[in-house]
């Protein structure tokens, strides 16, 4: 761990979060949507506690744990990628980013397996309100994972071409912030939909 003294973003305190402020406006909008969705889930559950509790048991907790770990790990890799570019090490940054994308891919594969299982049983959005919320929330998040991977890939390509440096790396921070948001949302989604009863 040569990077123990490396800092994330700028070393001094700042008025703005790292990355392009535009992405932060977007992140807030996305968080708002997810926040509303979560609250709506909880209140819809209130009227159907038994239904929600029953069908929650049909979800695959093992898959959810793997996915949670995958996203956390991926987020951590992105932190390393940011630290690498702060030291001007583009190629190390690219490797961390690729690792992060790979963890995202793990998430997609596992989640697709879950979907295949549900769809195989003929479950869809109209099956009942639990599955409506489960599928809506997780699919909406699923698409965000894909989107986040596309963004990370774009950042990785640019980093590979030497587009970032120790002093000019806003783009990396921007992609990283978005990816952490995807992780953050899942961290709430996981207990809410899979565990809390």
């Amino acid at each position, binding site marked *: 761990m040569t990077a123990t003294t490396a800092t994330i973003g700028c070393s001094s305190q700042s008025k*703005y979060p790292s990355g*392009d402020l*535009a992405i932060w*406006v977007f992140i807030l909008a996305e968080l708002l949507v997810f926040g509303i969705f979560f609250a709506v889930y909880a209140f819809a559950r209130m009227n159907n506690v038994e239904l929600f509790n029953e069908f929650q048991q049909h979800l695959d907790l093992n898959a959810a744990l793997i996915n949670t770990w995958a996203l956390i790990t991926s987020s951590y890799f992105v932190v390393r990628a940011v630290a690498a570019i702060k030291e001007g090490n583009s190629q190390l940054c690219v490797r961390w980013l690729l690792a992060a994308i790979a963890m995202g891919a793990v998430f997609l594969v596992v989640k697709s397996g879950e979907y295949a299982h549900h769809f195989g049983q003929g479950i869809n*959005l109209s099956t009942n309100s639990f599955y409506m919320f489960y599928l809506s929330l997780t699919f909406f998040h699923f*698409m965000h994972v894909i989107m986040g991977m596309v963004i990370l890939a774009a950042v990785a390509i640019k980093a590979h071409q030497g587009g970032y440096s120790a002093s000019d790396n*806003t783009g990396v921070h*921007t992609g990283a912030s978005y990816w952490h948001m995807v992780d953050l949302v899942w961290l709430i989604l996981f207990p809410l939909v899979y565990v809390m009863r």
Partner: protein
Amino acid sequence: MSEAFTKSMARNIFYGGAFFFLLLFLALTFDTINALPKLDNRAALESPVGPQIAKGKHLWEVNNCIGCHTLLGEGAYFAPELGNVYKRYGSNLDAVKGRIKGLISLPAEGIPMRRMPRFKFTDEEIAALAEFLKYASEINTSGWPPNDQG
């Protein structure tokens, strides 16, 4: 520190966001199209009265009924909702036909209230319209309207 907020990032968010939500919308549309057969009363369309319903819808359109009435809550708000008119008249086709016939044969003058144009429908056409309205009333509208008055 407005440089922190770049135009190119704002542009990328617009393109990315638009594409993303368009895809999501298409996915939901796809699911909706698959779910519709259970909801949209297409059994009626495929039944022997299907052609009559189609004719009724056509008449509904070429006489611009939507210009005064609502149908499943959409249209003009000048005259009653007709999506559930079949149920309002006791789920009785003859009652619906009689009502249409009565309204279009009111005298031209001397009725100082909202009134229906004097459409010249044949009995056959009135029957088609009634079948169309019956079909519409049997679509699964998630419990709307709140009561029979529409």
